[in-house]
């Protein structure tokens, strides 16, 4: 019999016979054991249910109160409705406006968490069937001891193999079902309880992301915590159009890996181009440097219409639902590969590959559904090779002269302009194009998000998006950049290395640019924010479409961010962690800091670790062009760890913010674990979720929200310097609240001393202690033998 608990192994052998010995009634007790993880989930709250962490959530929510901005004042989820909830009215089920808003947020986060978790399920099942459940997890070799920080934190056990992850994934699937059930009519009606469940959905989302990424990193030999992951090509102009081109769109890399594997096995890697849009392309470049990234989600229409892709393979998430129509227009066969995204195409899974290829090449079918990733590679490669010659010259982008002629047909009804989510001045530019000047059309290239809503609104059916692309062909010919392929996790060793620079005030904070980069100028703003903070020696992380977009802009020397800055987790590093699911490595790094520096128990100990992260780790997330439900779920996973998230102006459509009140001093109390006393720490970090109207506002917020109560004086002083400098440069004034962030004279930034002292005096400032901060009851570390002097 073997018994394992937290620290001890009890071994009892009644009878054993080996070559060396025969043992009877042996009892061994071992005090410590290394290299073997106990199989039993451990910790104070392993695998928490939707209500387990309610107390922690309420602590956060009492400081960062939900501020609702109803995007829609009606509830139309059941047949009692529509119910008007405005003006304090209740719905037929009794629901209030606040509860309805948080209910919709919860629904969005459940969708997001379900998407990542289902994605993880597909990857994990495939990897287990292909590599075996005992395939070891490896995210960074000897540089990483904590392989699965989120799994350990949430589930309370340490997975060693991909098979071990199944249990964690089953837990995640179960939680999402329960959370979704809470949104049913006549279930949860208290808005704070709904918000607590939003946090829960976020936590589960990060678990799902971690499972997806660490299993694919382990199975496919992606870069493993590699700061020097290779630079790969990015942009439409990086494609060699003399070869057949395959486009993959979506997030699940498994079918796309099949394409590269088939090409490699048949020695075709050099004669085809495999290109991608969105996260699949990011993950594909982690698999092979030969793959190329075209751009983020908004590049779908322009690239397909260009006619360059010979075949389009789609998997799941953020794939345009009208993609088969677009492909049909340029006679590019479509292959759908996911049960979740079958696009109405005929299921040809069991058929011989050559038959499917023949049907696609002849045009008998315009697309197929292949539910087995293993045959996708052969069908896609063969089809691309066969249709390549036939498709030469096909494009849906009209030439310049035809744009001018078509634009002349415009009746200036302005339906397009009203349909445009960015309210671009389409009427005016079409008028100018009709008059022969397409310069104004081209000027919309950076503003257009490629949604195509203008076209479906046009009564004359003018392809307005294609007009913009046609007018911008010069610009597109220059779209050739380089991006560092996703490096995966942050190694334990890197985390140790930044401990010193952070406490010595050399690194002001960690800022993660995640999610999409949609919305006008979103791309250039995102890239300039990354560059600004890297130059200010923040650690800058990117992921998903934000990582792609950040690579689409060059500095004066012609270098992209990834060429200009190191890929290491260090001051001024710019790290592409990978695709959407790689976001788990960013929250995972914050979690590892607690386990590495303070040796806090990691397994099943969410509350204590979140309290540590919230009070000590100066990390901020920015989702500048966030649009999806997945982005909502990712953000909520950061909130539960107490990490603030900033969204762009469209983020207010997520319906509610989590705002702190700097003017309520009582909101900013913590317990000082050293003395057991309650101490005021000032509004740090001031908000948990906030929308910024402009990039300038966002940059000032990043500097401000990177402050934490535990900052050393050198650390606080450098954070204040950046906050003040950005505020002065972007707003032209000293920040009016700087007195709230100065705790003692050593916090005052050296180069702003005079102005700050004048400000402090004017605001009746008083010195405050720097505590050992916690929102929890200080326990376990209470002073032995009385209070210190």
């Amino acid at each position, binding site marked *: 019999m*073997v018994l394992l608990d937290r620290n001890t192994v009890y*071994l009892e*052998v009644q009878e054993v016979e*080996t070559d*060396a010995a025969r*043992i009877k009634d042996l009892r*061994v007790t*071992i*005090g410590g*054991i*290394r*290299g*073997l993880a106990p199989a039993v989930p451990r910790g104070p709250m392993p695998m928490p249910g939707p209500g387990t962490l309610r107390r922690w959530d309420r602590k956060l929510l009492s400081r960062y109160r939900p501020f609702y901005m109803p995007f829609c004042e009606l509830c139309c989820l059941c047949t009692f409705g529509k119910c008007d909830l405005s003006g304090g009215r209740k719905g037929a089920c009794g629901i209030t406006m606040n509860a309805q808003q948080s209910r919709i947020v919860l629904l969005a986060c459940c969708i997001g968490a379900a998407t990542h978790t289902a994605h993880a399920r597909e990857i994990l099942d495939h990897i287990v069937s292909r590599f*075996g459940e005992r395939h*070891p997890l490896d995210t960074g*070799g*000897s540089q*990483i*001891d*904590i392989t699965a920080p989120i799994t350990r934190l949430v589930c309370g056990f340490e997975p*060693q*193999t991909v098979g071990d992850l199944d249990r964690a994934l089953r837990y995640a699937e179960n939680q999402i079902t329960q959370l979704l059930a809470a949104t049913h009519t006549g279930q949860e009606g208290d808005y704070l309880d709904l918000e607590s469940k939003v946090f829960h959905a976020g936590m589960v989302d990060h678990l799902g992301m971690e499972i997806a990424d660490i299993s694919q990193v382990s199975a496919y030999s992606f870069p493993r915590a590699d700061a020097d992951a290779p630079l790969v090509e990015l942009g439409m102009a990086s494609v060699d159009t003399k070869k057949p081109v395959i486009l993959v769109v979506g997030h699940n890399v498994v079918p796309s890996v099949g394409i590269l594997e088939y090409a490699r096995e048949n020695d075709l890697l050099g004669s085809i181009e495999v290109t991608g849009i969105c996260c699949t392309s990011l993950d594909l470049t982690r698999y092979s440097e030969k793959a190329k990234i075209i751009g983020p989600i908004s590049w779908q229409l322009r690239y397909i219409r260009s006619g360059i892709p010979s075949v389009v393979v789609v998997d799941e998430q953020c794939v345009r639902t009208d993609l088969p129509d677009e492909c049909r227009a340029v006679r590019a066969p479509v292959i759908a590969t996911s049960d979740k995204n079958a696009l109405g195409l005929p299921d040809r899974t069991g058929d011989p590959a050559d038959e499917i290829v023949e049907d696609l090449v002849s045009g008998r079918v315009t697309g197929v559904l292949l539910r087995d990733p293993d045959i996708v590679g052969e069908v896609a490669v063969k089809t691309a090779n066969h249709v390549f010659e036939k498709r030469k010259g096909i494009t849906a982008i009209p030439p310049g002269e035809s744009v001018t002629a078509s634009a002349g047909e415009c009746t200036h009804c302005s339906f397009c302009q009203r349909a445009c989510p960015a309210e671009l001045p389409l009427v005016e530019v079409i008028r100018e194009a009709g008059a022969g000047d397409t310069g104004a059309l081209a000027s919309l290239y950076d503003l257009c998000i490629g949604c195509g809503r203008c076209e479906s609104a046009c009564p004359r059916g003018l392809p307005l998006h294609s007009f913009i692309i046609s007018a911008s062909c010069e610009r597109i010919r220059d779209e050739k950049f380089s991006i560092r392929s996703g490096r995966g996790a942050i*190694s*334990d*060793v890197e985390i*140790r*290395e*930044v*401990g*010193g620079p952070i*406490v*010595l005030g050399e690194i002001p904070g960690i800022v993660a640019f995640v999610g999409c980069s949609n919305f006008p100028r979103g791309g250039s703003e995102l890239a300039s924010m990354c560059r600004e903070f890297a*130059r200010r020696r923040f650690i800058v992380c990117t992921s998903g479409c934000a990582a792609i977009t950040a690579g689409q802009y060059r500095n004066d020397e012609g270098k992209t961010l990834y060429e200009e800055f190191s890929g290491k987790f260090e001051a*001024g590093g710019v790290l592409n962690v990978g695709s959407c699911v790689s976001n788990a490595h960013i929250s995972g790094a914050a979690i590892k*800091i607690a386990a*590495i*520096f*303070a*040796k806090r128990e990691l397994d099943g100990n969410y509350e204590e670790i979140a309290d540590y992260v919230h009070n000590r780790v100066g990390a901020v997330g920015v989702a500048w062009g966030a649009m999806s439900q997945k982005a909502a779920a990712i953000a909520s996973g950061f909130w539960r760890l107490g990490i603030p998230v900033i969204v762009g102006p469209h983020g207010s459509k997520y319906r509610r913010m989590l705002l702190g009140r700097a003017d309520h001093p009582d909101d900013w109390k913590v317990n000082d*674990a*050293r003395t057991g006393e309650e101490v005021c720490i000032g509004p740090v970090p001031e908000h948990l979720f906030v929308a910024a109207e402009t990039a300038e506002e966002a940059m000032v917020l990043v500097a401000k929200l990177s402050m934490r109560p535990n900052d*050393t*004086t050198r*650390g606080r002083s450098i954070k204040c*310097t*950046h906050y003040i*400098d950005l505020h002065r440069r972007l707003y032209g004034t000293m920040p009016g609240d700087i007195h709230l962030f100065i705790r*003692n004279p*050593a916090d005052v*930034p*050296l*180069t*702003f001393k005079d*102005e700050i002292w004048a400000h402090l005096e004017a605001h009746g400032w008083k010195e405050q202690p720097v505590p*050992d901060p916690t929102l929890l009851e200080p326990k376990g*570390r*209470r*002073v032995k*033998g009385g209070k*210190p002097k």
Partner: protein
Amino acid sequence: MASDTFPVEVGLMFEGERIRRNDMQLELGGPKADAKWEIVRVRPAGDVVDGEIRVLGPDLDALAPGMSHPVGVLVEISGEKLEEDIEGVLERRIHEFLNYVEGFVHLNQRHEIWMRLSRRSFEKGLNSFRYLGQVLIRLFRDDLPIIEAMQVTWISDPDTVREMLDEAVSRYETRDARARGLLDEDVDTFYGCALCQSFAPTHVCVITPQRYANCGAISWFDGRAAAGIDPKGPIFGIAKGACLNEKTGEYEGINEIARKRSMGEVERVSLYSAFEFPHTSCGCFEGIAFYIPEVDGIAVVHRGFRGPAVNGIPFSTMADSTAGGRQVSGFHGISIEYMRSSRFLQADGGYGRVVWMPGEVLERVREYIPDGLADRIATEKDALSVGELKAFLEKTGHPVTGRWKPDSGREQDKDRKQEKTVLRLSELPIRAGGITLVLKNARITAERVIIERRPDDPRRRT
């Protein structure tokens, strides 16, 4: 620092600036200039004219553009509490403060300095050394109130720079000799650093002349300067009190401060030992000294070493046993600089007990290892397993082999509790409850056991 009269901005946000050769107005010092130096000197009160800036030689606007020029920077300060011992610490602030200037970068220190002025800032009006002098005086005086008077001299006349170089170098050497020769018994104050408490709440570093901070960033001199400048700051003086054990480096004052600052977690601290009551670590130590029971020796692995150390365990895993402000006998966080101290692991036998370290570390500390020992210490080239290590130590006649008993080939450290072996087998597989434990060449003792996975187990870690 904003000023209507100052031509460019000054602030910490310019610290990471880079100036390419094509964008530079000129270069001061650097590899192409034959003489360059900077120095801070503490002078008697009357000898310093506060606020005075002198330029000996042509000013910035008279120096040939695009070229590298010899340069000297002499910062003279006075103040009641200033002492020569902290000159070196203050000198490094020249680097920090000059980098605050927009369009001006400063690299290295002492007689290896290398500065660049950007053309853009020059054109904005940063055309005189006087401005750089103003920045230094303003920032030094603002940040370090213990400086009561300060004057700065910029020397650009090549002959004068060369003439004064020897004087500067001899001062650096005197300073280094003092730093190297200073013993823990020579001082009555050690320094405690609680900076890392913001992440590791129960850890305090004790910094003595012969024991650098674990992070490798703070010397006793740094501690002395920091505590003098900001007595309420995170670096504070520790009256060392009575020495309780000279060999292990246990002091009354340290024990007291450790108890207080660690919230009672740590009762006693041995400065020079990896056993019993080792100095605690946060997470950012540069290396780990760890015990290898099979050879009764101590090995060192540093943060930069990739792959498993000689005991088969990588740095990242061992660091987990070392960090977090706890005392774990046999796992000891250290700085590389401490390895240059004659007190390095003194209580455990010093280098006579050190059996393995990565080659890179060995080269960095070689000249501080007692004669004849360096080549008997194995590196990753000599041994990557305990078996190979044992053979190497025997072959080279490492002193630690003298500790091995002829019969068992090893002996427990006398200072450690006697461990009683209850079982010794070459291999013992035990299957129960779906788990297979294979004990290979393991001794099972009452207190501790080493368990290895089957070599063919895919879950086996590196």
